[in-house]
């Protein structure tokens, strides 16, 4: 495939549920293949090489975390413990993959906040990017 959009999502992830129809609409509008990969919390996502890269532990925040994190540590502690136990994963991951004639290239975007102000600019940025990529890849 010359240009495609893949979303790595989880079935129980509410952010993915919000993002997927929006991205699907963009891809349908631009006529780009769109795939949703439902992967569990224990799967290795696009942005990481192994599960070892997940650092949600209390010890890590105490050592390397920011001051803001350390202040809120008491509140976050049970959540962090829970995330550590289930091996939680960040979702959704949007992967934009294209081939420029020499090699495959990828852009991986992690996370999505549907309630923030940035959601609109995020989607418009993705729309612009896909539009330019499509014109470059298919030369139309």
């Amino acid at each position: 495939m010359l240009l495609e959009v893949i979303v790595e999502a989880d079935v129980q992830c509410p952010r993915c549920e919000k993002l997927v129809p929006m991205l699907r609409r963009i891809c349908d509008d631009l006529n780009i293949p769109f795939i949703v990969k439902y992967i569990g919390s224990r799967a290795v996502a696009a942005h990481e090489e192994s599960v070892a890269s997940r650092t949600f532990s209390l010890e890590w925040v105490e050592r390397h975390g920011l001051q803001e994190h350390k202040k809120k540590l008491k509140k976050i502690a049970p959540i962090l413990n829970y995330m550590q136990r289930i091996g939680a994963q960040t979702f959704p991951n949007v992967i934009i993959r294209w081939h420029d004639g020499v090699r495959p290239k990828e852009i991986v975007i992690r996370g999505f906040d549907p309630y923030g102000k940035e959601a609109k600019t995020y989607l418009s940025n993705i729309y612009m990017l896909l539009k330019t990529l499509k014109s470059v890849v298919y030369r139309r």
Partner: protein
Amino acid sequence: MVYSVFYYASEAITRFTIGLTLKILEYMQQRRRRMVEEKPKEEKPSVPTWGFFSTTNPYGVREYVWIGKATNLKVSIPELVKLPIQAHELRKPPTRLFFTFAEAASKNWFKEIEWLAEQAEKRGGVAGAT
């Protein structure tokens, strides 16, 4: 002495008669079941009738022809030649650029993409905030 001559003579006669009867019996048995000997087979030179055959077509190019076993199929495949074109060899590894949601939502995202792409070119692989 006389006794011994008779004795040996009679023994010789019995030996002869018994030996003769045994020989006759053996001969009769041999006649009854004849041994069948295998005929020496003529070895035919094995010529393959199906499979891949390398031939040279009238234009002087070597090609392989597949002739089917059960089907009357003839498929000619030209010989594969490695073309000396650069694009055929994937010299550069695939690139991956990583962004977070906040980066992707910012107005300077496209500038960041360009900058990261340059960095990835220099490094030859992966770049971005992971």
